[in-house]
């Protein structure tokens, strides 16, 4: 009886999580008539193919927009921003958590608060800065600006993560013959791998969905990222190319979902389990 309830609940969650994907899939391959007729014909069933599926929307997305180019641009920006974020936020979080003493916590909070300032407030001074540097309408502008969102948040994330990693393991290494620097370079990285992975995923996600800065700094269609290019190209006035929009969403979200699922164990797994406590 308990089992049945458990499976029923699990099934409920599967449907809940899977439905948006199903909806995107169906919409991407439906003929326009099939998509829009439901608005006037109440006997129309919306979640099945009433007319044979079509590749028309996918063709529009891949052939008549710069979608492949946007994916490439997004990848370039994401990789650069992730590398910068890890390189800055991990050492920053580590030193704030481990080396500064009780000021570390307060400084960490201060850094986190900068994350709470909305892009809608910051894009004006930033655009000034970007034009000063001559980076208007280039991916360089995004690579420079995005870390201002990712670094504060990820620094704070690493600090929080390190609180769950016992300091004692690093102290033990210092007693066992390592200098502090050697501990930071050789022992600590292994201990914070799950923290680094989390940083990667968070900055990845933040960058992927960012819209305001991209809209401000990028004007050429061939320099856009997915999150900017798709709505700009496929929403024309009040005409929404729903099929193609959904196809674009599907193509970006499925690889993401697969990556998330591959790493979810690493996040949840108590990596330090067995190191401390009985």
């Amino acid at each position, binding site marked *: 009886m308990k089992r049945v309830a458990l499976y029923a609940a699990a099934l409920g969650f599967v449907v809940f999580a899977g439905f948006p994907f199903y909806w995107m899939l169906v919409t991407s391959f439906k003929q326009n008539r099939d998509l829009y007729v439901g608005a006037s014909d109440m006997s129309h069933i919306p979640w099945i193919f009433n007319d044979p599926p079509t590749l028309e929307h996918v063709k529009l997305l891949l052939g008549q927009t710069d979608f492949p180019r946007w994916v490439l641009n997004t990848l370039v920006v994401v990789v650069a921003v992730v590398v910068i974020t890890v390189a800055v936020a991990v050492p920053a979080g580590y030193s704030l958590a481990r080396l500064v003493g009780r000021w570390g916590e307060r400084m960490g909070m201060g850094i986190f608060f900068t994350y709470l300032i909305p892009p809608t407030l910051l894009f004006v001074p930033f655009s000034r800065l970007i034009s000063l540097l001559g980076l208007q309408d280039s991916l360089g502008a995004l690579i420079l600006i995005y870390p201002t969102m990712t670094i504060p948040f990820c620094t704070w994330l690493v600090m929080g993560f390190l609180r769950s990693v016992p300091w004692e393991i690093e102290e033990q290494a210092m*007693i066992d013959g390592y200098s502090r620097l050697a501990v930071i370079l050789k022992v600590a990285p292994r201990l914070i791998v799950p923290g680094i992975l989390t940083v990667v995923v968070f900055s990845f996600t933040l960058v992927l969905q960012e819209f305001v800065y991209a809209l401000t700094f990028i004007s050429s269609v061939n320099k856009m990222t997915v999150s900017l290019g798709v709505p700009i190209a496929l929403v024309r006035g009040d005409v929404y190319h729903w099929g193609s929009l959904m196809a674009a969403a599907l193509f970006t979200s499925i690889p993401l979902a697969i990556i998330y699922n591959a790493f979810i164990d690493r996040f949840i797994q108590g990596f*330090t389990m067995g190191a*401390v406590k009985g």
Partner: protein
Amino acid sequence: MAGIEIRSLRKHFGDLHAVDGVDLSIRDGEFLVLLGSSGSGKTTLLRMIAGLERPTSGEIHIGDQRVDGDVPPRARGIAMVFQSYALYPHRTVFQNIAFPLEASRTPRKQIEEKVRWAAELFSISRYLDRYPRQLSGGERQRVALCRALVRDPKVFLLDEPLANLDAKLRNTARDDLKRFQRQIQTTTVYVTHDQVEAMGLGDRIVVMERGKVRQIGTPQEVYEDPVDTFVATFVGQPPMNLLDAGDPSLPPRTLTGFRPEHFLPKSVFGSGEDLRTFRFAVRRVEYLGSDRYVYGSVAGSGAPDATIIAKLPATITLGIPEGETQEFAVPRRALRYFDAETGLRRKG
């Protein structure tokens, strides 16, 4: 092999004086226990010896080397076992034990030999290929001790290494630890809040409270001759009874103290014994198998409601009815007197 000298050592965290002027001289080969409740400064003191915490002032000497300045932990010739064991989670047991040897660039073959020897000593040879998360608490603790041992340290520092073991294991682990220390004769400083552990392990015990040393002595000295009411009630389970007996032969404001095991029905003492008798109002009797604890209060004392405990061994089968007042007595040689104001011991 080395002794440790500590002179007027202080550690202040802002306004908190975690260690507040400690002088301590630990002999070569001695097993010294730092005993205190949490916040007594015992762990901070240990961490300063290890070099994990920098003293605010004072001196620490290990052997003939002064270490309180800039000598990093790795150069102090110490080994430490943390309460959490601090095993490296991504290394096998073998790699964990080999870690300090690798750090000192010991040749591969020698590492192999040494790890096997130490693992043999603690009977964990079977687990060398496992990871810490696959071991039980007792096994982890032995891995941590092994890792400490292979360094050939001048001093062992142990921070409550038995606290995470379950009660059943703790007895055998304590015995193992003591035998092992006798065998290798390395100076050991052991921190605990458990007075049974302290009594059982220590050659000498240092009782600490609020950053200060209250008493240093052998387990017997600390138990039989506590210097003040704090030590008297901290060491011993149940604690020493303290009451203002209002005895006219004593100076005013004097507390009389006696251990629960000395407080027995008057009838069990021989006639030749010099006794101090109390009228004991029995409230409740607790049967614990090897002992009976009798809770009650003493009429005519300064605080007539204060709970006094008697601990009767199972060899005394006399019935103690609850709710009645009986004659209980303590041999005069077992009485200890304290100043009620300062808590300090009064001779006599």
